[in-house]
């Protein structure tokens, strides 16, 4: 009896594996690599499904090109390993191109972004200089983190004046710590910061920005053809209004979307 069960299970597993293979053969599968905890660009939405501006835009690109969309959520630290191993075709998750120009093949920039300092209302910090001697939080491997590490072109010298720079795995924990009073401020992208503040009042940005940059889609260096196909699709979606329509669903980032219809340029 056990033997039959074992054989049956083996056959079943093989059949599942084979059917999995055949399913992938019809049409190209576009594997969208993103951080699952980076709202409003990519996150788990209220229905428990993958959502966000980047996810919706990527799905629209896939639909336009006739590709099958496949979500590949990863740990942000592991993005390069995932991309180079071929587990995903691109990194598309509020991904900053500035300072990484030579590391990837970049699509056109589809969103502007600025790094800001977020503090609780009533904080005595009003300028970047006031951050001296304060504890500041940041998420690892983000552009705000890179900016604070870079002493030549970034804000490394400013970071040296902090009493400590606390490096978190996600901004969610960093924001919890800011609420709990464990740290004084957070260095964060303006769009992610707006998203956090939209659900929790009582926080504001300093007027002075920490730095500014553009978001784009990063492909493997030799994937220029794929990048071109996505660029073409992106421009078409901008021209037919889809880009704008998706953007309007995300008011906290809408003003930063920087692609314009071809006729307007």
């Amino acid at each position, binding site marked *: 009896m056990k033997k039959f069960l074992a054989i049956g299970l083996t056959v079943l597993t093989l059949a599942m594996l084979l059917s999995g293979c055949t399913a992938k053969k019809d049409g190209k599968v576009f594997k969208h690599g993103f951080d699952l905890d980076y709202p409003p660009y990519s996150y788990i939405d209220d229905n428990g499904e993958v959502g966000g501006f980047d996810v919706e835009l990527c799905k629209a690109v896939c639909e336009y090109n006739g590709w099958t969309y496949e979500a590949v959520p990863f740990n*942000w630290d592991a993005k390069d390993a995932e991309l180079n191993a071929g587990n995903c075709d691109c990194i598309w998750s509020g991904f900053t191109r500035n300072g990484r120009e030579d590391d990837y093949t970049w699509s056109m920039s589809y969103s502007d972004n600025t790094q800001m300092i977020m503090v609780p209302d009533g904080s005595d910090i009003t300028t970047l200089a006031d951050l001296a001697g304060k504890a500041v939080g940041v998420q690892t491997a983000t552009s705000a983190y890179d900016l604070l590490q870079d002493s030549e072109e970034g804000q490394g010298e400013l970071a040296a004046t902090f009493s400590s720079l606390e490096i978190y795995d996600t901004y969610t924990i960093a924001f919890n710590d800011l609420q709990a009073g464990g740290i004084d401020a957070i260095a964060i992208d303006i769009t992610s910061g707006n998203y956090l503040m939209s659900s929790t009042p009582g926080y504001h940005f300093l007027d002075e920005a920490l730095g500014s940059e553009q978001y784009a889609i990063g492909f493997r260096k030799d994937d220029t053809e794929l990048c071109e196909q996505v660029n073409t699709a992106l421009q078409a979606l901008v021209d037919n209004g889809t880009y704008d329509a998706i953007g309007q669903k995300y008011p906290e980032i809408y003003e930063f979307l920087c692609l314009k219809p071809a006729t307007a340029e």
Partner: protein
Amino acid sequence: MTFGTMLSTMAGGMLKTVLLFVLTLVGSLPLGMLVVFLKKSKFKPIAWITDIYIAIMRGTPLMLQLLVWYFGPYYLFGMNIRGYKFPALLIGFIMNYAAYFAEIYRSGIDSMPVGQYEAAEILGYTKFQTFMRIILPQVIKRILPSVTNEVITLVKDTSLASALAYQEVFSLAKQISASQTSFMPFVIAGIFYFVANYLVAWIMNRIEKSMQYYK
């Protein structure tokens, strides 16, 4: 970043890993023994509470426990948690590992034949003397391999401290790897962990050998 800077930065992280590791052991090894006594308490409510404690410590992820220990005082009592990160980490690790060590100790104590207690009683040993002079030395000898397992796991579990922004060697490896787009930091971290665990295994092996007084 040169290889030398990378290595020295990560060695700094390894020191923080070792610090957390040593302090956790110093706290949890004795605390585990206390937990066993509470669990074996004749006063049942204490035994029940200890059971619940062990069930929670073993039944939930350590990373979650660390977050609760750190943020708990603020969310429950509105306390100021400035500067409480490292104490919270220590409490989290010690409480968790004490539960595991307690179960290992219990397995050793329960494996002792009743005849030994009876013989000790007839020879006039008090309960305390019986435990300290007859039972405990045998228990330690029996449970050492299990304790070694747990200690080695602890070396690797310290990487969970990154949940509270503690810059131990693995979170440093992740950060350096991301900023340098290089896999090398992970290789270095792997070697650091391996060497540390090899050392732990070697020391524990020496202790085990020193206890084989009947061979």
